[in-house]
């Protein structure tokens, strides 16, 4: 089976300002094994 997660999250306010202060970033990669409760992104 498969689960698809779709969600809104902050992005950087302007392409120039990529300080990532409030920008959402994934902390996983394709092919990674994950378990319930582990961070997918912050």
């Amino acid at each position: 089976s498969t689960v698809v997660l779709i969600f809104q999250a902050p992005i950087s306010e302007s392409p120039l300002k990529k300080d990532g202060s409030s920008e959402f970033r994934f902390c996983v990669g394709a092919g990674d094994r994950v378990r319930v409760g582990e961070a997918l992104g912050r």
Partner: protein
Amino acid sequence: GTNSQGNSFVVPGATVATILMLGALHARRLYDDKKVQEAREQGIEIVFKPDLKASFLQLLPLRSISRFWGSLTSTELPVWMRPYVYRAWARAFHSNLEEAARPLDEYASLRDFFVHTLKEGSRPIDPDPRCLVSPVDGTILRYGELKGAGAMIEQVKGFSYSVSSLLGESSFLPMISEGHMQEDSVKQEKVPGEKIKKSWWRVSLASPKVWEPMSAHPMKGLFYCVIYLRPGDYHRVHSAVDWNVLVRRHFAGRLFPVNERATRTIRNLYVQNERVVLEGIWKEGFMAIAAIGATNIGSIELCIEPDLRTNLPGKKLMHSEPPEERLYEPKGVGLMLKKGDEVAAFNMG
């Protein structure tokens, strides 16, 4: 004499021929899969390529096969046999038996064992309030930001499906313009437990494609993550964040396999398959999760709606048929879930 003698020759011959054919098909399958593995190791992108087997699958009564599999695995096993059967399953599909919450001989059937819960503390939830956690055990297939009109997710290179076909005509899915979402004038503060401000919905429901000029609030993007659960994985679904579930949509669909080969050869796989979509809102805005069934796992059970049944016989599979939808009370607030709460479970049949 010749007639019965003829028959006694024909039957074994046909049997041997069938076994040889199946063996040849299986060998070909192993060869193909090895090629795919080598291609991936060389960094060659796997591309979408329908094949004969995918067309053949279209003809099979997959839902009936799935229900038959479910009734087979629901057979109660003698207590002495249970540990042997479940250890064999665990060895074949790399399940971790140590984590099962109960002793093996307490699971009456394979189906009962398949949906076992875990020992307390087996899955610690990341405490960081800024993070979104994995709702399941599995393998990350795809992830990223949805940009541009249409919001398409790549199934594999060369084939994509749209978010709106996956989730259904969502009245909550914010419009997407140039790939960014602008938070409207009303900021969603700590949504869970707090009434959702009407204006947000009014804006998102009625908002035209063109958005107001940059508002004082941070821009929002729409992100996605596709996670594949192997047969031996823990098959319960948990909440990725603190959120309010506002609506549930059940799509009675096909039950194609969803393994790696199927994603490479079956068009619109996730949009055709039986699935349950939960949609709502979290502190950063829109949130949805789609639980998609497969041939061997046709059932999706909701902890928040125990009466829901999927993979029912006699359902007409018309693509035009709208999903069966339910809005959770109280309207506009829905059901509140905390990060890590159990939400649903996949099961056989």
